[in-house]
């Protein structure tokens, strides 16, 4: 069967389209980032400004804020395409849905995950993160945030057709985020104590590879359910 354009071309077209749309609505990129910064700012005010306390809790705060920011930004991943019918056209296209979905998730990660990784060291300075932990922080965020985008997209795809999806989405995907949170923060803690943390990084990388392979199929199946 003739498929029109190749998989790579379809992937790149969709990726460029999503990036271009996002650049024209810059608020969509900056709002989750501002949310991330604000949540992190709240913690020193809430638990007190002592540097020792902040050093201890900094990895957890940064990661929890990253989870919430990622979840908040994910909500719009399929929303616009769903309401204007683009999503149905994607489902009907001859290209496999998992390729298209992967392009959308990658675009989402470039727009929300990468800025978050770039701004994280700055927040780590504000939270007096241990000097040894910066490498681990960056490595876990680089490996972990794509996993968040991929797993979260499953939940978003399941709830895109619902009107009251927001709260439900957090119930669906936060439990799936927990393993990422545990291994990421334990890697940063280990780095702070000058211990080896490549084991935790290897597990995070395994999660990334696993979800990169399996999640697009789950997302595709969920989208077919949601659009019926």
């Amino acid at each position, binding site marked *: 069967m003739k498929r029109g354009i190749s998989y790579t071309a379809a992937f790149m077209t969709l990726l460029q389209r999503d990036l271009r749309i996002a650049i024209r609505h810059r608020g969509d990129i900056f709002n989750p980032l501002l949310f991330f910064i604000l949540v992190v700012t709240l913690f020193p005010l809430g638990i007190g400004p002592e540097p020792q306390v902040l050093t201890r809790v900094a990895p957890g705060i940064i990661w929890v804020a990253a989870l919430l920011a990622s979840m908040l930004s994910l909500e719009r991943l399929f929303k616009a395409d769903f309401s204007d019918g683009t999503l149905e056209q994607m489902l009907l296209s001859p290209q496999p849905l998992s390729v298209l979905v992967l392009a959308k998730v990658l675009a989402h990660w470039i727009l929300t995950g990468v800025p978050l990784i770039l701004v994280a060291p700055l927040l780590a300075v504000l939270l007096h993160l241990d000097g040894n932990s910066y490498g681990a922080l960056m490595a876990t965020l680089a490996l972990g945030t794509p996993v968040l985008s991929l797993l979260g997209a499953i939940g978003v795809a399941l709830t895109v057709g619902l009107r009251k999806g927001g709260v439900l989405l957090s119930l669906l995907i936060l439990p799936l985020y*927990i*393993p990422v949170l545990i291994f990421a923060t334990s890697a940063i803690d280990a780095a702070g104590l000058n211990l080896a943390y490549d084991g935790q990084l290897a597990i995070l990388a395994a999660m990334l590879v696993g979800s990169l392979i399996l999640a697009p199929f789950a997302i595709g199946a969920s989208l077919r*359910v949601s659009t019926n």
Partner: protein
Amino acid sequence: MWKWLHTYADPERAYKLSGTLLPWFACLAIAFIGLGTTWGLLFAPMDYQQGDSFRIIYIHVPAASMSMATYMAMASASFVGLVWQIKSADWAAAAIAPIGAIITFIALLTGAAWGKPMWGTWWVWDARLTSELVLLFLYLGVISLYASFEDKVLAARAAGILAIVGVINVPIIKYSVDWWSSLHQPSTIKITEKSTMTNEMIFPLLINMAGFGLMIGAITLVRYRAEILARNGMRPWVRELATAEEAK
């Protein structure tokens, strides 16, 4: 070979079969749990370290192991429903989910009650306890996703995908005590080698585990019958059933 099984995908036959099975499951569950609990609580020997408070094991361990088994049952039913498009399997998954959530909650609650005298704390954030808590959240996610769709055919498919994605958590719970150093003790019941408990202690435990399984089966059948009736309200056989009930 599996042809005979397909006839039970028909809602009416599934309803009748679950009606026939229900008294068996219910009676056996009462007998097993009655025997296991009395034996365990009154006649099993006392633990030399933990004294009498170890006896909560006869509720805690069956609930905990069945919480995982129930999840697998729900996910398998969802898988059958998704792959072979059998609606009665979807209804079974929907019927199982709330039972699993309650059983998981019981396991967490009895675990906390056991932890207080033994570890000196209600709760610790270790691998097994946390992953069991995640299991509870997964159950709640499946239940609320199923509840939030108007169209129950779509609801079952969506909840089914979530249930299958969540299966990844079950082996994590099962092996958490072997993989991580945990405050929770490693499993004492071994299938392939000799268990680390004496026979007088372990027999009532095994009986109670079987009893919990049967009890969950019985409650599932009750809920499954209700689910079938709710989803087939417009079918003539359900109407006949309802008019026959009214005439009584």
